[in-house]
């Protein structure tokens, strides 16, 4: 017996599950030394991470992921003026040229991690800094300011150190945790590190199945108590390959 009532759709009340924003920042060094293969690799690697990030976000009802890109060379600029929801995010290829005003980038980032524009309730922001050199400006004051902001302090901060000319101490100051300074010695490493960094958003927002600590492959202790990120089980932090150096 056909039954019209059974086949009609009656909406349940209520809305989607309440979620929190998660702000993800790519901070990309676009100085002259990044020209050529390096920036091309970065462009390709980040672009290829978008789809997996979108897929992961789709499976996560507890977070709404927003992505923004900040480039720095001579000066620093936001690539988009507003946070872009991951489902709408597209990568605009970056070009390299100029000096390394990393401090300027920290200043712009700090302005965005202040409340407002940051909301009261959120998941820890994730900041991924990619650099192949040393700051040419006086970065210290701006980094200090960033790290003293509540959301700056809470942010999971990762640095990808490209090649051998990097001042890793600056990157360490930024991450507050040696484990989160990833060394990329070649294009393959760089792609691997970027891909891994892109998955940190899902670890932070909806940590997947957690494994017992004792069974982790690398049971290195997490340094840097001032860094929220230190408490997460990131698993699988990629290791650089030995060999070719740029």
């Amino acid at each position, binding site marked *: 017996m056909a*039954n019209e009532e059974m086949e009609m759709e*009656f909406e349940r*009340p*209520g809305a*989607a599950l309440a979620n929190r924003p998660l702000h993800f920042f790519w901070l990309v060094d676009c100085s002259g030394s990044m020209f050529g293969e390096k920036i091309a690799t970065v462009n390709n690697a980040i672009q290829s991470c978008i789809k997996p990030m979108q897929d992961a976000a789709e499976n996560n009802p507890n977070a709404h992921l927003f992505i923004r890109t900040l480039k720095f060379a001579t000066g620093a600029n936001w690539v988009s003026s507003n946070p872009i929801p991951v489902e709408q995010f597209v990568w605009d290829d970056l070009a390299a040229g100029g000096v390394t005003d990393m401090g300027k980038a920290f200043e712009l980032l700090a302005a965005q991690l202040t409340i407002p524009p940051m909301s009261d309730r*959120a998941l820890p922001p994730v900041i991924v800094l990619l650099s192949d050199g040393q700051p040419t400006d006086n970065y210290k004051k701006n980094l200090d300011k960033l790290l003293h902001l509540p959301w700056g302090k809470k942010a999971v901060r990762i640095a990808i150190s490209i090649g051998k000319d990097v001042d890793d101490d600056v990157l360490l100051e930024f991450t507050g945790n040696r484990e989160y300074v990833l060394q990329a010695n070649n294009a393959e490493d760089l792609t691997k590190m970027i891909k891994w960094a892109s998955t940190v958003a899902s670890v932070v927002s909806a940590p997947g*199945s957690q494994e017992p600590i004792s069974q982790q492959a690398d049971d290195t202790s997490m340094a840097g108590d001032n860094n929220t990120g230190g408490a997460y089980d990131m698993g699988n932090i990629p290791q650089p390959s030995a060999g070719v150096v740029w």
Partner: protein
Amino acid sequence: MDGELKKGTLLTSENGNKYMVDSLLGEGGQGAVYDVVMEGKHVALKWYHKDKATSDQRKILDNLIEKGAPDEHFLWPEDLVIAENGKRFGYIMPIRPKEYKNPVALMKGMINPSFLTLCKVAYNVTLEYQKLHKLGYCYSDISFGNLFFDPKTGDVLICDNDNVSVNGLYASQVLGTPRFMAPEIVIGQAKPSRNTDLYSLAVLIFYMFIVNHPLEGAQEASIKCMDIHAMRLIYGENPIFIFDPDNKTNRPVPGYQDNANIYWDIFPQNVKDLFTISFTTGLKDPRQRVTENTWLEIFANMITGIIRCPSCKHEIFYDTSKEELGVAHTCWHCSATAKVPVKMVIGRKVIVLNKDSKIYAKHTIGNSDMTTITGEVSINPNNPSMWGIKNLTQDNWTYIQEDGSQILVPPQRSALIKANAKIDFGVEIAEFK
């Protein structure tokens, strides 16, 4: 990711079967899942990341493959595939049909199943986990990610069964998923077990019914940065049920956690009582958690306890406690009052008799089958005011009138719905009330 399998790669299993990699279906923390083909048939391969391909995991899989699936609702490991160098491995399982959706789709409002369907999902998923527990296993990681259901029928599939382990012999690689892990696991005092499964199951069902986490109320709302420390507090160190009758400090916050208040009022008191036990006494004492049989009895009555609003036709749950207290059933959508129809009562099983109501094998032969329809409400073609129960089984039923006289109800015939009359199904006897 390192070691991705390329399309066309040929892999050989322990049993000598050859699988050809077709496409990547998805990636997770433990590994990637591929669509692979064997003799023209598509199946799924879960291929572990290098550091997850442990000998412990392999032992678990060998055991699961040997024992076989509890039933066809589990996408169970069927065959073990090992890389040529012997270092990586994965397992074969049935592929999931596309129409099955994850609770995440429900949480995001991308699908809108009826309350009836959700009750069927709750019933079916509880039944499946009960089957697992009856075999001495625990699942260890009940959460959004491993349940899929058909939004039309409420049929369920349980996937990611590679963490299933023997209860009490903790060997699994997982502790569970945050927000679903029992508090004693969150604070590091316990490992996954049957009792922690019961907690995760209660969270999962609460999420599906209420679209809010049972512990996310004022406490969660007061936290600015939801980092791992905050999560440990809410789900582990200081968990408080948002509707704890004795502790009102963690009520849902209007404007932020509205779903909780909207849905909670719609559900019948007996299921709310079970949630309350689960997230008050059961929160602290794993032995006092609600067991599957108790849930199943309530979910079965919810499936057969839906009244249609006489005005807007939305679904209203019949609530025994309202009837006992003489409180009207009002529609949550249009506020119209709904009259409770005649009910069929079999022990503690209650079926509200609407014109589209069904009865199931559970009612007529007393098993746990709430899928096989054994009877339905039918309208007398000669007198539309006379409703009956049509016998959809192969067996004769006996209709017992109020005066005790008996009439045979052969298959395909209907017996009149009348207060105080009874139907003897052979095993169970139902009374109209």
